[in-house]
């Protein structure tokens, strides 16, 4: 049976350490890996648009000397003709060696993995999980902070539908002494299954509404975008989209080494004037996204260098 990645918890902490070591080695020695996936094919099955994640996967495979095929929205796939995810993956298994799947419905990648003959990477399923973004976030924190654990992280914005946030909380809950501060409007609070999990593990967290009240305590601030596509009601989206904007004046209250992360794309939740602040790490984060996906593809294909 092939190994899949559905959830960041599919890999143990030790396995993640190996994956991040490999990603750091790829970053330091890109030449060594340029033919590692020669004649291997990655299928990117994207049932909803996501240029960034898809390009990141494609760049990762191309950097490894492999090839890429796939579709970038449901309308150009057989889903438009009513084909099920299970049938699609059985067919894709005949064409490619590994598949990255994004789908607007939650659990779609899980359905695919159950029937797939090749490794399936969940590249985002609705508002549920987005494990490769989490791996990117963990690698960025580990590479730039030098550790995973012993910090206070504030997650700000859409904590209800923001899948990157859910995956990251799950992943960080396995490390020592991580304190969470959830900063969101009442309507976009973190779901109860996440707080249930934190309560069960006795992990410290706090839910607050104002970023200004808490920014000074944070070692890491993880900003998110309020996503239009997660709302059924346009009015709710318009009311909540500008709730948090990180500005220079708010940054004055932050620690000197606080790291700002964002899964990108941003709309206006981080003012562009912050981009030159050395604490802004979100573009470096995008680069780490490619390294970690390269390491993941190698690991799931069982290619050792």
């Amino acid at each position, binding site marked *: 049976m092939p190994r899949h990645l559905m959830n960041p918890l599919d890999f143990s902490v030790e396995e993640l350490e190996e994956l991040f070591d490999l990603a750091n080695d790829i970053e330091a020695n890109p030449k060594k890996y340029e033919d590692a996936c020669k004649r291997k094919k990655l299928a990117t099955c994207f049932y909803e648009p996501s240029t960034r994640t898809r390009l990141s996967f494609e760049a990762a495979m191309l950097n490894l000397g492999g090839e890429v095929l796939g579709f970038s929205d449901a309308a150009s796939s057989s889903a438009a003709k009513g084909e*099920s*995810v*299970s049938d699609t993956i059985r067919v894709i298994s005949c064409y490619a060696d590994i598949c990255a799947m994004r*789908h*607007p*419905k*939650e*659990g*779609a990648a*899980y*359905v695919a993995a159950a029937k797939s003959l090749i490794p399936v990477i969940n590249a985002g*399923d*609705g*508002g*549920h999980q987005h494990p490769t973004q989490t791996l990117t976030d963990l690698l960025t924190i580990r590479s730039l902070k030098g550790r995973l654990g012993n910090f206070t992280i504030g997650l700000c914005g859409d904590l209800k539908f923001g899948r990157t946030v859910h995956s990251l909380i799950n992943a960080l809950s396995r490390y020592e002494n991580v304190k969470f501060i959830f900063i969101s409007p009442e309507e976009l609070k973190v779901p*109860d*299954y996440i707080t*249930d999990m934190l309560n*069960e593990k006795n992990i410290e967290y706090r839910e607050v509404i104002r970023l200004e009240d808490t920014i000074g305590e944070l070692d890491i601030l993880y900003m998110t975008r309020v996503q239009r596509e997660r709302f059924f009601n346009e009015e709710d989206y318009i009311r909540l989209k500008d709730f948090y904007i990180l500005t220079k004046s708010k940054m004055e209250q932050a620690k000197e080494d606080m790291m700002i992360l964002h899964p990108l794309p941003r709309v206006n939740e981080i003012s562009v004037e912050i981009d030159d602040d050395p604490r802004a790490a979100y573009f470096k984060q995008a680069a780490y996204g490619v390294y970690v996906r390269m390491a993941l593809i190698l690991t799931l294909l069982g290619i050792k260098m």
Partner: protein
Amino acid sequence: MLNVGKIEEGFVLDHIKAGQSLAIYHHLRLDKMDCTVAIIKNAKSNKMGKKDILKVECPIDLLDMDVLAAIDCNITVNVIKDGVIVGKKQLTLPKEISHIFKCSNPRCITSIEQELPHIFFLSDEKKGIYRCKYCEEKLDKRRFV
């Protein structure tokens, strides 16, 4: 006062939440079995105010305890032999529930792929919380398949 006669061998399901007896009747597949069944709705109860009761005349091993526990673990299962209660069966929460409840999350893959089985796993044994195997949404026990 309504009187329903005794049964000789079978079981009496007591303390069913008022209004749930028909769902239990269907999910225990009692409609497919050739046996005597009495469904008592809205009976007076000191503990619950109103409750439903099911009396079924059939061998006790035909009862699927997992289905019953999944629907409501607080139901009392009285085992009847020769017209008297000879014991009570303890219900324990099954690890997984299939084909009884539907996921209530409109974003779940099961909402568009009709052939997928609706499966829930026991995520918190102490609180009896089940979650959808696909999207992890909490089970809403009012939504039967």
